[in-house]
């Protein structure tokens, strides 16, 4: 078996004096789909942002494809180009067209020829089902379309793993489905995914494993089947009863 893509050991992080992540241990294998859930403020975003070093941890170790993340910024850009990320607020570049958003990194980071990058981008735009919007600006698209462009933009880098930070939380209900459909397809294609979301339907359908976090800790992890029907401790149970009520 090959190396795990992400390997986090005894990782701790503080914001000033606030202990936000406590003794995190997490290994993500190739092709694995992991869903992270937990109450707001439990440290989910911080955890996945540590994985591409948008945040820096202070103790323990994080390895991405075997490379240790530390202060030396050497190779950081390469790691980041192998780790895709989809944000809650999309973060598309408003001054560039959809196509330009997608080809920016392939051209400037992967040093791909423009024509080749555009071909690739059109392929992924088709996959997220918005091939005809390529020449529009992000501001002209709906939220759901923007998030799908963001996914396509990430895929254009051929990432080994994609991190999702509540990708559907900023969307109106009717748009959530179009984004989730794209994510399910992506999962079926074998992409390694680490996904913070409260969409339990999505977790049931594609996750290999569900992780529950609270107070900066991983409280419980299990396969979705057992996680939902048979939570191991009371905190998880309480959370699930609140989430699943609706």
């Amino acid at each position, binding site marked *: 078996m090959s190396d795990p893509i992400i390997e986090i050991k005894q990782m*701790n992080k*503080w914001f*000033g*004096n*606030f*202990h936000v992540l*406590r*003794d995190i241990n997490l290994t993500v294998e190739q092709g694995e789909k992991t869903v992270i859930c937990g109450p707001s403020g439990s440290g989910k975003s911080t955890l996945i942002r540590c994985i591409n070093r948008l945040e820096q941890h*202070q*103790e323990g170790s994080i390895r991405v494809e075997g490379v240790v993340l530390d202060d030396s910024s050497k190779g950081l850009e390469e790691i980041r180009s192998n780790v895709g990320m989809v944000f809650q607020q999309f973060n598309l570049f408003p001054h560039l067209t959809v196509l330009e958003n997608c080809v920016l990194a392939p051209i400037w980071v992967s040093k791909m020829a423009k024509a080749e990058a555009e071909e690739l981008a059109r392929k992924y735009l088709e996959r997220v089902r918005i091939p005809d919007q390529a020449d529009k600006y992000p501001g002209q698209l709906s939220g759901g379309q923007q998030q799908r462009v963001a996914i396509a933009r990430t895929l254009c880098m051929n990432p080994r793993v994609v991190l999702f930070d509540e990708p559907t939380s900023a969307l109106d209900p009717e748009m959530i489905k179009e984004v989730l459909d794209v994510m399910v397809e992506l999962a079926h294609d074998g992409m390694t995914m680490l996904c913070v979301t409260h969409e339990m339907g999505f977790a049931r359908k594609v996750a290999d494993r569900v992780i529950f976090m*609270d*107070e*900066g*800790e991983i*409280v*419980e992890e299990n396969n979705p089947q057992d996680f939902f*029907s*048979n*939570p*191991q*401790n*009371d*905190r*998880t*149970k309480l959370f699930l009863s609140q989430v699943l009520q609706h």
Partner: protein
Amino acid sequence: MSSATHWTPKPPRPAPVHTVGVRGWIRTNLFATPSDTLLTLVAMAVLYLTIDTLVHWAYIDATFSGANRDACLKAVQGACWPFVDAKLGQFIYGRYPELERWRVDLVFASGVIGLIPLLIPAAPFKRANVIYLLGFFPVFAFIMLTGGRFGLEPVETTDWGGLLVTLVVAITGIVASLPLGILLALGRRSQMPIVRSLCIGFIEIFRGVPLITVLFMASVMLPLFLPDGVNFDKLMRCLIGVALFSSAYMAEVVRGGLQAIPKGQYEAAAALGLGYWKSMRLIILPQALKLVIPGIVNTFIGLFKDTTLVLIVGLFDLLGIVQFHFTDASWATPETHITGYAFAAFVFWVFCFAMSRYSIFMENRLSTERD
């Protein structure tokens, strides 16, 4: 369903010492990376040299007392503070007769008394306060300063000078430019094409030319426009020039506020049956002006600094009078100029800085009120 175990969160641990406290602060804010360290060291060196020079000039090598230039002519020369000390009366009042200066003090004091409660948002009686400041105070100040009534000795404006002139020009400009600016802004948004074009023309012309040309116009050209024999004094003419000039800038600030008011407010006011002036006065302007208080204060700051330009057309504002006293041979030293400028700069700075802090304070207050 199986029974669940009870979960207790891990107690938080303190952060590693090198990341928090004074040590952590210094590390992240001054020495985060090697290039940061280098930058910090260079900055410290530059800072040290600057502060060292300043302290030597203003304090260690400076002269603090003396009756004339001789005191300041030393081997190592710093600031010549006795110059400022000797001329302070002139710098504040100009050639205003010494026996009558209490009148100026009284006007200063009554202005401050009216201004302070107005600036404190929580202070009561805003309406009475405004009436006092815009109605009573100008008349009172005019009578007190010019005299010739109620047994007061008349004092020609040509004898006014220093901070007095600076404040008179600035305050008149401020008081006149706000209403004029509001009218111009309303005119610019008016439905009536002739009114609109006149206002646009006025605003764009005054914003397109330097203040000094306006002052030239006021001091050389204005007398030509008046019938033979009619003339009024130079200070008055400059006041008109400054007020017109700053009202054009004020108009653009106010227009920004008017544009930011949602259309619904205009429609709601109309739906209540309010006429144009009533809806402006009661609904639109109060909101619009509040939105642009920072912009208004910034215009005031600009106006305050611009008052120095009156020295070019021969009035003696604070800077003008300081400059004028450099010609006094009994105080001619190599450091007199810089000392005088430093003093004037400090006075202007205090006023402008205070105004800019006030505008930031209001901005923060308004943005918290909004959400």
